[in-house]
C-alpha cells in the first residue's frame, strides 16, 4: 500500500478547498494544518497504538468532501424523540438549517462557518482551535476545516434539555465527513449532549469526528456518542476537566465496518469525577477499536472506566486503556474494566490495560475478560421452558445492563436494548 499516494490525494483536496465562512483565521488554520498534514504520516500496524488495527482498507478508498443535500429526506426515524426541540442536524457533515431546531435560551450554539474573527479570538481563549495535533486524523479534521459547532454554556447555568446532534452519514457515496465540536461547560453549570451518528444508506463514507470538551470548575457534563455507522468512522474526543467537575461519558458503537475511537481525558485538578462508559457491538468482519487514555495530573480525583463488548461472526474488537497517574497525583482512585462476550468462534478481541503510575499512595485496579455466555445461567433460564434464542437475549441484556442502566435517557436505553437483540437475530446461529 502506497501511503504517500493517499496523502497526496487528500493534500490536493485540502489545497483546492474553499473555506466556507468569513473568517481569515479559519483559512490560516487550514493552511497551517495542511503543512502539518504533509509532514505527518499514516500509521501502520508497526505503530504500537495501531498494532491491531490495520487502516489499509480505509486508505484503499477515495473519499471526497460532500455537497449540500437538496432533496427532502426523512430524518424522523433517526431522532431520539423525547426532546425534538433541541436538535442540530448534519447531513454528510454539512449543517442543515432546514431540519435543525434549536432555540437555546440560556446557552449559546454557534456554527463555526458563521464565525467572525472576534468569535475565533473568543474560542481561542478556551480551546486550541487548530486542533490538538494528536495524530494524522485530527490534523486532517482541522485541515479540512469542516463544519461544526461551538457550544458554550456560561457559568452558573443548568441546561435542562439534552442537546441532540444528529449526523446522518453516507447520503452521497464516498463522502468525506469532518465535523468538529467545541463544547465548553462553564463553572457550576451542566449540560447533556447526544451525538447521534447514523448511516443513511449502504454507501461507503469516511467520517472523522472531532470533539473537544472542556469542563470548568464544578461543572457537569453527560455526553453520549452513539455510532450506528455502516462504513469508516474515526472519532477523536479530547476532554479537559477542571476542579470538582463531573463527567459521564458514553461511547456506544453499535455498528460500522471500521470504527476507531480515541479518547483522552485529562483530570487537571482535584476532586474530579470522570466516568467513562463504553458499549460496543460488532458483527460480520467489522472492526471496533477503543483506545482511551485517562491522565490524573493532580491528587484526589476519581476515574471509573467500564467498557463492554459483544462480538459475533468474524468481527474484531480492540481495547487499549491507558491510565497515567502523575507523581503529584496522590490519593487517586482509578478503576478500569473491559469485558467481552464472543458469540462465535471466529470473533476475537485484543484487550490491553496500560497503567503508568508514578505516585505511591493511589488505588488503581484493572481487569479484562473475554468469554462466552455463561452456560450455567443459560441452563437456568432454559430450565424454565424459555428457548435458547430468548435465553441468549436475556443474558446479553444482563451483560450490557451495567452500562445501560446508567443512561438517564429512556429512549436511548430502549434503542440500545433493541440493537443488542438485533445482533442475535441477524446472526445465523450460535456456534459456541
Amino acid at each position: 500500500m502506497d501511503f504517500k499516494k493517499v496523502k497526496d490525494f487528500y493534500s490536493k483536496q485540502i489545497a483546492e478547498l474553499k473555506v466556507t465562512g468569513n473568517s481569515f483565521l479559519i483559512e490560516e488554520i487550514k493552511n497551517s494544518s495542511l503543512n502539518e498534514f504533509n509532514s505527518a504520516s499514516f500509521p501502520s500496524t508497526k505503530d504500537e497504538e495501531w498494532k491491531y488495527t490495520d487502516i489499509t482498507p480505509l486508505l484503499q478508498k477515495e473519499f471526497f468532501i460532500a455537497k449540500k443535500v437538496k432533496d427532502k429526506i426523512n430524518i424522523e426515524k433517526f431522532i431520539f424523540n423525547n426532546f425534538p426541540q433541541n436538535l442540530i442536524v448534519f447531513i454528510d457533515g454539512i449543517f442543515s438549517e432546514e431540519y435543525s431546531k434549536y432555540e437555546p435560551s440560556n446557552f449559546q450554539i454557534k456554527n463555526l462557518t458563521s464565525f467572525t474573527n472576534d468569535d475565533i479570538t473568543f474560542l481561542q481563549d478556551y480551546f486550541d482551535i487548530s486542533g490538538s495535533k494528536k495524530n494524522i486524523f485530527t490534523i486532517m479534521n482541522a485541515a479540512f476545516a469542516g463544519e461544526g459547532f461551538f457550544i458554550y454554556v456560561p457559568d452558573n447555568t443548568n441546561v435542562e434539555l439534552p442537546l441532540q446532534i444528529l449526523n446522518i452519514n453516507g447520503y452521497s457515496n464516498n463522502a468525506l465527513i469532518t465535523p468538529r465540536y467545541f463544547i465548553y461547560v462553564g463553572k457550576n453549570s451542566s449540560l447533556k449532549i447526544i451525538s447521534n451518528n447514523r448511516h443513511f444508506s449502504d454507501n461507503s463514507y469516511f467520517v472523522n469526528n472531532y470533539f473537544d470538551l472542556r469542563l470548568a470548575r464544578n461543572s457537569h457534563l453527560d455526553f453520549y456518542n452513539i455510532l450506528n455507522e455502516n462504513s469508516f468512522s474515526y472519532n477523536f474526543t479530547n476532554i479537559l476537566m477542571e476542579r470538582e467537575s463531573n463527567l459521564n461519558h458514553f461511547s456506544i458503537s453499535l455498528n460500522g465496518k471500521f470504527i476507531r475511537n480515541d479518547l483522552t481525558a485529562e483530570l487537571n485538578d482535584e476532586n474530579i469525577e470522570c466516568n467513562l462508559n463504553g458499549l460496543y457491538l460488532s458483527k460480520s468482519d467489522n472492526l471496533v477499536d477503543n483506545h482511551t487514555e485517562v491522565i490524573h495530573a493532580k491528587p484526589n480525583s476519581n476515574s471509573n472506566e467500564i467498557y463492554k463488548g459483544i462480538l459475533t461472526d468474524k468481527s474484531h474488537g480492540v481495547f487499549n486503556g491507558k491510565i497515567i497517574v502523575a507523581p503529584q497525583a496522590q490519593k487517586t482512585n482509578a478503576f478500569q474494566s473491559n469485558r467481552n462476550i464472543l458469540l462465535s468462534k471466529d470473533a476475537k478481541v485484543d484487550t490491553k490495560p496500560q497503567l503508568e503510575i508514578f505516585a505511591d499512595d493511589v488505588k488503581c485496579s484493572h481487569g479484562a475478560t473475554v468469554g462466552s455466555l455463561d452456560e450455567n445461567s443459560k441452563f437456568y433460564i432454559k430450565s424454565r421452558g424459555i428457548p435458547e434464542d430468548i435465553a441468549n437475549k436475556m443474558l446479553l441484556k444482563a451483560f450490557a445492563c451495567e452500562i445501560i442502566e446508567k443512561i438517564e435517557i429512556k429512549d436511548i436505553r430502549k434503542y440500545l436494548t433493541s440493537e443488542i437483540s438485533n445482533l442475535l437475530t441477524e446472526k445465523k446461529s450460535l456456534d459456541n
Partner: protein
Amino acid sequence: MLKIKNLYATVEGKEILKGINLEIQEGEVHAIMGPNGSGKSTLANVLAGHNNYKVTQGEIIFEGKNIFDLSVEERAKEGIFLAFQYPVEIPGVTNYSFLKTALNEIRKQNNLEEIDSKEFMDLLNKKMKILDMDDVFIQRSVNQGFSGGEKKRNEILQLLMLEPKLALLDETDSGLDIDALKIVSNGVNVFRNKNNAVLAVTHYQRLLNYIVPDFVHVLSKGRIIKSGGKELALELEEKGYDWIKG
C-alpha cells in the same frame, strides 16, 4: 410419572451416577438424602437436562416418554422443574418479564393462548402472598442482590407460577433460617396435589419436617443403597450417614 432405570451419568468424564433405579408416582413426595459428593445434585441436574452431565447408560422415562433426546427447555415444557441450589442472577431482566416469558412458553406447549397482563398480575399477586413476598420483587431484576432466602423463595414462586408435573428441589433448605424454611416449605405444600410429584434432594433432615416425604432414599457413591419411609430420614439424622455405609 417418572421411571429411572439403571442410570449412569458422568460429569467431565468422571462417573457420578452408577446405576440409579427409582420410580415416582403422581401425588408422591420422594426425598433423596446422602452425604456430600454422593451424586444428589447430579441426579437433579441430569433429570433437568444440564448438558455438562452425560448419560452413559440407562433410561429416564417421564410420563411414558424417554426424555433422553429432549433439551432442557423441552423437558421444562413437558413439566419438569428444577428449583436450583444456587439460583442465577440476571441483571436487567425483571422478575415480571422473566416469569411472563416462561409461563407463556409453557402455555404455548399446552396449546393455551398467551396470558393477558391482568390475569397474569392477579395470578402473580396470589402466589406472592403465599410466599410472603413484597410487591417490589415484581420489578426487581431476577435474583439480583437477593439474599439467600429471597432467592429460594423466588424459586418456589416460579414453581407455583409454572405448575410443573414434577418438582425437583435441589438443597432448597440450604441457607434458610427457620422462618424462611417454613414459608418455602409451605409454598411447596401448596403446590402439591394428587397429579404432581416432588423429588427433594437434601443433605439434612430438617426440610423433611415440613415437606413430609412418602419415601426416603439414601444415595451413596452414585447408587441408592437404602430406601424406606419418612422414618428413615429421622434415623439418618440420629445415626449419621456412617451408619448406613457400615
